[in-house]
């Protein structure tokens, strides 16, 4: 099955059609997606800023990362669930939209980077240069995810 056929089937599914048929489900799901984004953004920013030497300088990045980890993971779960719901209702539009593929590529990179390299840097003390570079890459990747996502809504 081609990707387009799969996306079409998703959109034509009971779930996709139910969301399309309601004027409320899509906007309300978007609200959760946006709240999740704000929480995720805060959790990532706090730690990345610390790695850059900004913000809560009195506390080790390891401690901050540990403290906000439940927020980050909770927000990611909310975003994934609401994001899939949004996607199913307009999968075919997404297929033809460059911003969708841009966002998904950025998301794959951001998740991989966050849960491999960044996690490793936040486990053990590393050189300041490594910490700064890690934060900059993380911020760029997640900004691309956010901007790409917002752009899916524009033709």
């Amino acid at each position: 099955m081609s990707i387009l056929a799969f996306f079409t089937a998703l959109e034509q599914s009971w779930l996709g059609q139910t969301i399309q048929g309601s004027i409320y489900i899509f906007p309300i799901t978007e609200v959760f997606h946006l709240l999740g984004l704000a929480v995720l953004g805060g959790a990532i920013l706090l730690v990345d800023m610390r790695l850059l030497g900004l913000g809560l300088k009195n506390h080790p990045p390891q401690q901050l990362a540990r403290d906000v980890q439940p927020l980050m993971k909770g927000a990611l779960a909310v975003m994934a669930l609401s994001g899939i719901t949004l996607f199913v209702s307009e999968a075919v539009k997404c297929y033809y939209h460059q911003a969708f593929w841009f966002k998904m590529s950025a998301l794959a990179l951001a998740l991989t980077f966050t849960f491999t390299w960044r996690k490793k840097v936040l486990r053990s003390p590393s050189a300041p240069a490594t910490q700064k570079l890690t934060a900059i890459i993380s911020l760029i990747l997640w900004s691309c995810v956010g901007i790409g996502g917002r752009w899916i809504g524009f033709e």
Partner: protein
Amino acid sequence: MFEWVGTTPWSVAIHESLWLYPIIESIHVLGICLFFGMVMLLDLRLLGITLRTVPVTDLTKKLLPWTFAGFVPMAITGLLLVYQDPLRAYDNYFFQAKFVMLILAGLNALAFHTGIYKRVADWDRDPVAPFRARVAGAFSLLLWAGVIIAGRLIAYNWFPKT
């Protein structure tokens, strides 16, 4: 007045531009991330949910500048979003609700900073802040979340007045 603002040249220019509106809105969303992210962390700290070992004054001193750094671009782009299509805001209960909650959130912050926060030295290191600070934190979370919810729903005018 709203009608007149919508006919000014710059308002029309943003409204009709292909790129300006998405760019302004993207900055608005990124501003929300920084602003709400920082506000939420302080609120959750007051409630004793996260960063319990970090003194409250550490958060306020180090994060408030970043809260402002998020607030300023968010407020400017927010004004521009109203400016480019004022009638959309005028004819919209979600916009009015958002505005009321914005004011309440501001008053809540003012009450916190002029009230219980004056005596922060007494409870700076407590894992859970005193009752009045927790109330301020909870109101702040609810009001700002409400602002985001109402703001997003402005685009879906479910109850048009006219």
